[in-house]
């Protein structure tokens, strides 16, 4: 009876998925307790128990706040700049054909190579993190805005113009509604990019953000608090990604109907 119920439960994918995660955590726990030097890795139970201690470490709450602000500002700037450039480039076919190859070329280059330049120009404070985050975040927005504008059926524009719509009315009532699904897909990619850019810059050099503490914990051989901090940051990243993904689902619904 119990065995039958158990086998029935295992047949559900999410039960098995939780099982896999638990198994991995058990393996990690055992490895960290008996095989690996505690200087380098600590078991998950101890990491979870130390989460309050991470938050009590002087400066960590402030550092998390700083990093969160950097992410938020970088994302907002990415969206604004990306939207402006995307519309400027996408609305005129000639401009699009001229400048899209240059934008694609820039998008394809690995921006990490110029990370030291960002530090040099914007200092080691939050400004360089925001700038580097924006440099990763605004390209996907430009791409999707240009693609979204390009996919508008010309007949819609023509008929709007024939009915006497001015430039702003066309933007407001034809271009924007059509752009929304791809624009939100771009926002999701931009959030991934902003997270990568800001965290890369934080890890490279940091005075007030979390990068300062990851370096500190690494150099002090304190894997418990390092893992705690990484877990908190990962949770923050998942939260931000999920927020944008939900927004995408919500706002692109009308289009599929």
């Amino acid at each position, binding site marked *: 009876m119990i065995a039958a119920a158990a086998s029935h439960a295992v*047949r559900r*994918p999410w039960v*098995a*998925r939780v099982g*896999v*995660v638990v198994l991995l955590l058990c393996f990690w726990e055992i490895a960290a307790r008996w095989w690996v030097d505690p200087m*380098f*890795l600590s078991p998950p139970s101890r990491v979870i128990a130390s989460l309050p201690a991470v938050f009590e470490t002087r400066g960590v709450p402030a550092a998390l706040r700083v990093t969160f602000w950097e992410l938020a500002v970088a994302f907002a700037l990415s969206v604004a700049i990306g939207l402006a450039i995307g519309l400027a480039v996408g609305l005129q076919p*000639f401009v699009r*054909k*001229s*400048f899209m*190859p*240059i934008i694609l070329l820039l998008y*394809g*280059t*690995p921006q*990490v*190579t*110029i*990370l*030291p*330049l960002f*530090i*040099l*120009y914007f200092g080691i404070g939050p400004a360089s993190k925001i700038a580097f985050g924006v440099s990763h975040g605004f390209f996907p927005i430009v791409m999707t805005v240009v693609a979204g504008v390009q996919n508008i059926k010309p007949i819609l524009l023509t008929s709007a113009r024939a009915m006497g719509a001015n430039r702003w009315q066309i933007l407001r009532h034809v271009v924007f509604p059509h752009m929304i699904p791809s624009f939100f897909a771009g926002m999701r990619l931009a959030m*991934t990019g902003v*997270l*990568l850019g800001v*965290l*890369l810059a934080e*890890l*490279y050099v940091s005075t007030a953000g979390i990068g300062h503490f*990851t*370096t500190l*914990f*690494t150099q002090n*051989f304190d*894997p418990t608090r*390092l*893992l705690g901090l*990484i877990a908190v*940051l*990962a949770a923050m*990243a*998942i939260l931000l*990604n999920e927020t944008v993904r939900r927004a995408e689902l919500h706002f692109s619904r009308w289009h599929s109907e």
Partner: protein
Amino acid sequence: MTPTGDRSEARFASRAVQVTFLIALLVLWYLATTRWRVSPLLLPNPVVVLRDFWSILTTGEFIGDLRVTLTELVSAFGIAASSGLLVGYLISRSQYRIQVFEPLFAGIYSVPIILFLPLYVLLFGLGPASKIALGVTISFFPIALNTIAGFGYVERTLVTAARSMGASDLQLFRYVLLPAALPIILTGMRMGFTVALLSIIGSETIASLAGLGHRIVYLAEGMEMAPMFAYIVFVVAIAAILNTLVSTLASRGRRR
């Protein structure tokens, strides 16, 4: 004027705009450093950068760093590709396993894996091992996810038809599953390669002892701006060559 003539004229015009834009950028850069007295500590003279770039190429001083970076890249991508393909294939063989593992992998993939870098530095040290580990972790997921997507969603009718015509396991794999899945898998491999390259140069920038990323940081900390710009140009060129190579291979494999 024929429509094709119009089109080629328009293409010529946009090429002209592109070239003008790039030349204007270079001229602005040159004028900024010579006329408008922008400090060479912020922006070196492009002529000096070009000279340094040439001397890097001719003296071959890049070879040591390039070898380190390429070794890390090849090992990371090799491990990620082989394990990603294997794991992806094994998972894709049953709908149940796909339902269990695909959301799990997609969930992990959405976390910025660069966060693990401090942990890897702690575990594997400052040498190549931590970069390889990070590169493997980052590029494993796109490869595995695309392998699952490629093999997992082959049309049932194709498999059933091949089976009913008496195809063996090997024949089924060779003539039905592989051709159907290959385009998606190659896309995954290309994505994996790009992020592996990015993460390896990034982790060399953040904490390392050798490699191209390390060289750029070393020059930046010494405020040697002209050679640093030259190295940035060099690394961007290397990355462009590698990415083009991989996309060409991927699209050639896709066409077959």
